[in-house]
């Protein structure tokens, strides 16, 4: 009984705290911000600056782990308890815009002096659009470039990295000759779909056809990309492992058991942290090679996060101020210094810390050549399924043609609902 009473007291003591949050902090308007993982942690350091510049707004940041962010956001939408503003992975924008959870931002952008499309990389800006409207403002960029062992690639004759697919494959062959027998020139984790999708995009595959209602995976473009991808494994140029099976990728890289790795900007920081100072001159980055007879660099995908305002928010003007603040080039540069996330705003790249970083330069070149992944809510499910199916082809359990046909069949089934909805929308009242 005593314990029960203590619990009750504890509960009651929380009430004023909760009420305080809802009612505003000493007369200021409270804006609730959900940030994910590391970004949610780092953005807290920017809050004092923001509140100094916007005295009428109190910014409350809640950090949510990436692994459960998607569920939490969807649950919040269903339970009508969304924050005012949140960081959204770019691939999630179509989904949340599609269910009507987000507020279109075109009006705010048109009026804003701080945010406009020209300030952003075009491929990045495009990712936050859905159905012709802007639903998010890019915050930071994520894309893939080639990390490589400078010494091994130099010995193979490609000191600046390969520029075409033929050079790429040639470089892998030559590196394999000088590596120990159990080592592989390339790391391509089988559970990651991004690399495969990028190769498809490079070959000009739309990935999804007919306005995102059908799979385009057995088309000639994706087929060529998949042949290249699967061939790398069949010629033993990449180990057939998922990322978690690899153990320590950085160590393998430092030992020369891996010479090339297609990965993202977070690894700039990881390589610096995990490799010893003497090993730092061993690695370098390069923009992605392009398929033969297409302009260099090859396209990469445009990932990262955007900032979005929820439709249910009562504090939209104040939330927009948060977006304007975080889009300021100086703040973007500071955010890069804190988190290592690459700025989405062009001008922030002129910041000396970033401009002088020779290993970040490949990203600067690459972000000019990025395209968005298909903008349908089902995309992530489709992409993961594609990688799983192709793993069967890699392991020789299925022929490539059979795998590609199966992917299209499965994707058509996943997208059946979307086709039905689009047909209903265009067909009028028919069910």
């Amino acid at each position: 009984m005593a314990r029960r009473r203590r619990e009750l007291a504890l509960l009651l003591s929380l009430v004023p705290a909760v009420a305080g949050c809802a009612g505003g902090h000493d007369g200021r308007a409270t804006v609730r911000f959900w940030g994910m993982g590391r970004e949610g942690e780092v953005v807290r350091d920017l809050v004092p600056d923001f509140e100094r510049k916007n005295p009428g707004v109190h910014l409350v940041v809640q950090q949510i782990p990436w692994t459960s962010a998607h569920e939490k956001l969807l649950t919040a939408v269903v339970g009508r308890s969304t924050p005012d503003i949140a960081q959204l992975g770019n691939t999630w924008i179509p989904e949340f815009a599609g269910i009507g959870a987000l507020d279109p931002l075109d009006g705010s952008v048109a009026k804003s002096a701080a945010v406009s499309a020209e300030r952003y990389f075009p491929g990045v800006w495009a990712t936050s659009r859905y159905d012709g409207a802007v639903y998010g403002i890019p915050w930071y960029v994520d894309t893939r470039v080639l990390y490589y062992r400078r010494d091994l690639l130099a010995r193979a004759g490609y000191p600046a990295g390969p520029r075409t697919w033929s050079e790429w494959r040639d470089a892998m062959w030559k590196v394999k000759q000088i590596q120990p027998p159990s080592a592989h020139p390339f790391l391509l984790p089988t559970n990651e779909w991004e690399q495969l999708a990028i190769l498809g995009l490079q070959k000009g595959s739309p990935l999804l056809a007919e306005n995102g209602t059908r799979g385009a995976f057995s088309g000639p473009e994706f087929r060529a990309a998949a042949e290249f991808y699967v061939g790398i494994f069949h010629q033993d140029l990449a180990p057939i492992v998922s990322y978690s099976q690899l153990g320590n990728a950085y160590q393998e890289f430092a030992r020369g058991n891996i010479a090339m790795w297609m990965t993202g900007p977070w690894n700039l920081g990881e390589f610096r942290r995990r490799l010893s100072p003497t090993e730092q001159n061993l690695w370098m980055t390069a923009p992605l090679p392009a398929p033969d007879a297409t302009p260099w660099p090859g396209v990469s995908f445009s990932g990262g996060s955007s900032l979005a305002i929820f439709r249910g928010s009562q504090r939209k003007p104040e939330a927009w101020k948060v977006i304007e603040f975080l889009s300021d080039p100086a703040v973007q540069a500071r955010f890069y210094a804190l988190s290592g996330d690459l700025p989405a705003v062009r001008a922030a790249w002129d910041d000396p810390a970033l401009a002088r970083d020779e290993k970040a330069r490949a990203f600067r070149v690459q972000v000019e050549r990025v395209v968005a992944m298909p903008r349908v809510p089902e995309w992530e499910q489709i992409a993961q399924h594609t990688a799983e199916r192709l793993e069967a082809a890699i392991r020789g359990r299925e022929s490539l043609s059979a795998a590609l046909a199966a992917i299209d069949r499965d994707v058509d089934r996943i997208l059946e609902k979307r086709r039905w909805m689009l047909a209903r929308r265009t067909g009028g009242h028919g069910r």
Partner: protein
Amino acid sequence: MAVDRRRVPGEVRAALFFLAPGLLVIGLFFLLPIAASVLLSLTDFDIYALGDVRNVRVVGLRNFSRLLADPLFWTSLRNTFYFVLVGGPLTLSVALAAALLLHSKLVRWKGLFRTIFFAPYITTLVAVAIVFRYLYHPRFGGLNRVLELFGIPAIDWLGNPKWAMPAIILLAVWKNFGYAMILFIAGLQAIPESLYEAARLDGAGRLQLFRRITVPMLAPTFLFLGVLTTIGYFQFFAEPYVMTGGGGPLNATLSTGLLMYKQGFRWWNMGYAAAIAVVLGLVILAFSALQFRIERRRNA
């Protein structure tokens, strides 16, 4: 009771009155969600339906036919059976062994050991799973260090598809045997000492005492624990969710519960996830019924 018929309605009314709160709670929080799940499994409720309810279609049994054709579902079911059929008996055996030790008159500090063995059961699974993830680390983990002493080469416990499930079963056994042990101890204490004395006078050996008296007398406990463990293990979810990043490597630890969670809360295919829930519920029901039947036949 049949003698005085007039009093029966009154008794029933009184019984209903006292049962009402319980029935209400069960109805509201148990039966209603089950009914809702079954109804949900007949629709294609998904992410689009969240935006607009008019996007829900009734699809009949199509979710179920799709499920039966889904190789991932069969993989998850195989993993789940692996976990239940290996983990369940192992848990009960370890629990019984521990109970016999603690029941023995030779053991001292029984209270202390009981507490130690029971402690894992009441700790939070997620915290335990994270600690075990360190223990299982291929290079720095404590388990491989110990194996090294015996000259056994390092095993990538959670990264190797062959070892991931045994690693998770080990965790589950360690975590859960304490509860079964306590119940076994209670069962052992309920066996009258006179039975053992009589058997000993008849010249029964230790093994015979165990087989002819202890085991049969513990049968109700076995049944109860068997059903409970089976039901619990069929729903295993948090272990792979925390330890193998959601069912890896190569889906070797993808349980049916985890698949349901992924379909429901990751891809938001609620209708499909509900169908998985219904099938999993039926499997558990069938298994429990089977255990009851075996027990009844043994008694008959």
